[in-house]
């Protein structure tokens, strides 16, 4: 039985909700608009909302004056690389814990989660010194290693909650029908596990893309991903709002789009399955 809702109440809800939604979204919209302004229009008071001279100049300048593409590529390599390596290590582990649970499975899972609770500053000094001594400072491979380790617990957990939902009876049925272990994995489990793996991949790329502790402190010119490149705008020279906006728009657009696709998985992933 659907509850009766008057059109008027619905209209009120709609107006309030859209107002709140647009207010929260406004800084992003404003950044997007400013990225098409001249630097003069960008600092104009009163602010120019739509009636300004639209230009692509900032996008061209950001690309010309800095190695924007290098930083973008660094972000891609670091976020996708660390996620893929993390998945390669986590899939077997989560698979085993979900399908062959032992007495200590729960303890192992909880212990993995506890490693995530360790604040990064607690190990900043040794990691920094280790990186310095081994030449890993300001390298993509160094950041991939760190982010893989940071993300591993979340990846294992997310996969575990997905794998656990695959009914064990299906495996038994397949075994009764004479499926070998290999075909069991290949034809029964894999198709059922792919959606969970895909969402884990998506959420983790988002988290790694936006990671801004290690990426800021362990990189300089060569391996800096977009988080660190944008941070260089904190000590700018001259007018820079439009260029900051263009660089920011390019940095957040891909993730915003990926993020909107993964809203549901986000809840589950970030609460370690506590809220679904």
């Amino acid at each position: 039985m659907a509850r009766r809702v008057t059109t008027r109440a619905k209209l009120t809800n709609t107006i309030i909700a859209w107002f709140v939604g647009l207010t929260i979204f406004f800084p992003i919209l404003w950044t997007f608009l400013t990225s098409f302004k001249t630097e003069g229009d960008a600092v104009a008071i009163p602010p120019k909302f739509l009636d300004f001279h639209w230009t692509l100049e900032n996008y061209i300048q950001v690309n010309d004056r800095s190695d924007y593409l290098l930083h973008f590529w660094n972000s891609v390599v670091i976020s996708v690389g660390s996620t893929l390596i993390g998945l390669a290590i986590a899939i077997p582990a989560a698979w085993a814990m979900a399908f062959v649970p032992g007495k200590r499975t729960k303890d192992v899972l909880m212990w993995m989660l506890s490693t995530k609770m360790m604040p990064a500053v607690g190990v900043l000094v040794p990691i920094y010194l280790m990186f310095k001594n081994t030449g890993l400072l300001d390298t993509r491979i160094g950041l991939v290693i760190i982010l893989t380790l940071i993300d591993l617990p979340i990846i294992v957990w997310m996969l575990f909650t997905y794998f656990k939902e695959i009914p064990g009876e299906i495996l038994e049925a397949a075994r009764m029908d004479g499926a070998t272990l290999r075909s069991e994995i290949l034809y029964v489990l894999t198709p059922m596990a792919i959606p969970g793996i895909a969402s884990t991949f998506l959420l983790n790329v988002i988290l790694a893309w936006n990671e801004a502790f290690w990426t800021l402190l362990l990189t300089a010119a060569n391996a800096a991903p977009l988080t660190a490149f944008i941070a260089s705008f904190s000590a700018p020279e001259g007018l820079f709002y439009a260029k900051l906006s263009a660089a920011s728009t390019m940095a957040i657009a891909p993730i915003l789009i990926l993020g909107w696709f993964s809203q549901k998985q986000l809840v589950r992933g970030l609460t370690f399955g506590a809220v679904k």
Partner: protein
Amino acid sequence: MATQHSRAAARLMISPAVILLFLWMAVPLGMTIYFSFLNYNLLIPSAHNFIGLQNYDFFVTDPAFVTALVNTLVLVLGVLVITTVGGVLMALLLDRPMWGQGIVRILVIAPFFVMPTVSALVWKNMFMNPVNGIFAWVFHLLGIQPFDFLAQAPLFSIIMIVSWEWLPFAALILLTALQSLDSEQIEAAEMDGASAFSRFIYITVPHLTRSITVVILIQTIFLLSIFAEIYVTTNGGPGNASTNIPFMIYSQSLLQFDVGGGSAGGIIAVILANIVAIFLMRMIGKNLEA
């Protein structure tokens, strides 16, 4: 049924993840503990002598530590209050029937996907700048003196920026929880003559309590280590007005090269985080059994 054979295979499949995480936990943390007992400054590379608890003593008795500790607590609590109260209100609003619900949801969740350095710099320059910012213009329209947010109220400004980043998280999780509420329960209460207020207090709130706890605990873990937002806006200043514990440790170890002192601070941060973590782990552990 799990056989002896499949158990062995399972152990083999789990071990790479366990070994890696164990090394990640034990080695750097062990080194931090070790460094924290040494007189170790990168500017004086020769001297690494053991000085016991002096680094801790030095770090904790530094007046800046008390400031940083208070700042950390104010930052965490401020953001928690704003995002949980705002999140509950937002979830209740979004759960009501309306046109374009999906689009509003997308608008509300967006800030969560913006990288911290972008959020902080956009807020700092395009909104909070006392000359060219949108707030300066609004204040001007209202006839109020322009206000230099990050200079005059640095910690408050950072709380605003971080709340904007985390409000979507709280709203989304609480909305998900709200949508799993059985609507028949509410209808039954309605038919029995329960008022909207008592329906909210006796049905909705108890249903949300668990999710609110999860939101608070998870956010606390992240909020205790806020760094990038401070790094690109105030750099901990003016003075140390917006320095929190992570920023203090960063500045101690990487700017002043005091490895020993920074490590002692790191261990203190680990202890603080663990106090919160124990509660969170208990929550999630309970859920695992259910």
